[in-house]
């Protein structure tokens, strides 16, 4: 299973980041993605696999527009 929710990067230590999920802090390797403090990141099995953009709403709206009857 892949984590469906993004966490916030609160600290970076060497090759790992501390990532907060509503008060749960986990350590994740950052060798696969460039992250910085403040980013929202997707963590999969102890590694960050992607950062999250905040653009969903518009893009989806646009897509949906194209699909509407």
């Amino acid at each position, binding site marked *: *299973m892949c984590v469906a929710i993004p966490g916030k990067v609160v600290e970076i230590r060497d090759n790992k980041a501390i990532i907060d999920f509503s008060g749960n802090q986990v350590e994740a390797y950052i060798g696969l*993605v460039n992250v910085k403090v403040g980013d929202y990141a997707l963590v999969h099995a*102890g590694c960050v*696999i992607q950062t999250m953009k905040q*653009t969903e709403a518009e893009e989806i709206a646009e897509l949906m527009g194209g699909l509407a009857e």
Partner: protein
Amino acid sequence: MEIKEIIEYLQNYQGPVIRLMEVCGSHTAAISKFGIRDLLSDRIELISGPGCPVCVTPSAYVDRLIELAKEPNTCVATFGDLLRVPGSSKSLSESKADGANAQMVYSPMDILKLAKDNPMTNYVFAAVGFETTAPLYALLIEEAMKQNLSNIRILTALKSMPNVIAYLLRNEAQIDGFLAPGHVCAITGADYFGKLAEEFHIPFAVSGFGDEELVVAIYGLVRMIEQKETGVKNFYPSVVESGGNAVALDKLNTYFEPCTVAWRGMGEIEGSGFCLRKEYAQFDAGSIGLKEDKKKNHACRCGEILMGKAKPTDCPLFARVCNPSNPQGACMVSYEGSCFTAFQTKA
């Protein structure tokens, strides 16, 4: 369009029967958990595909893990689910009772510390997964080399999405559209499925894992089908970029190469997996040739279910001999397996 309107649309759909396959196990689990089937018209069917990494692992792989775990001074580290997958006769978890040394970890990277703290123990990570997880093993090996740890190996059963989907479509799976796995696309980019969409004239919708995200993507697929559109639409743009994750892809290609692997119940599919490149063979715990796939129970229909040709309830063993405490096939093991989720939420 409001989510309420979308749901209403899906609930009231009266067109020709539409069969959608989610190829990602996390999608299967989320669809169950959110009760999404209940929101769809009877004419929209959701079918679970071969996207649960645990469910598609052949018995020979599990048998080999057990063999390794029983070797002296060897510990097999793995994700939780895999402990319970039956091999040709037992699971890793059952073999612990026979002296197999197996340990559940949260992350493949956890074995770096274990291996460092216990230099006399050989750690083997059970490296299962798709494009999403494969780069993690690349990172693991990179770190093991950096830290000079010689007591780490992996046993791979890494799978790749496109060729198994092509296999399904070539083998008469009746599917009208695919929910493409959001996290695979986070690594590979959304276009990863473009060639398939084109070749088979079929639509793909990239979806996230939230309830609304899934509903939106399903709606998107239904609309594309109704409008006879093919191609890939990305309903998960906050995570999935067109190019994917270049760093991860680069690491994946550095350590691994495409290869032919066996899928539980389906046999070998060309180019449907990843294997360690020869240069890194010393990290391999004997992954080559693990193709045998002895069914624990011959009546198990996991293979057909993974191909969308049968539903769990079509299996004569379902909820009788086969249940999560006594799984006959891998589909009943993983929390993401079709049979498991069908069992868990059966009315």
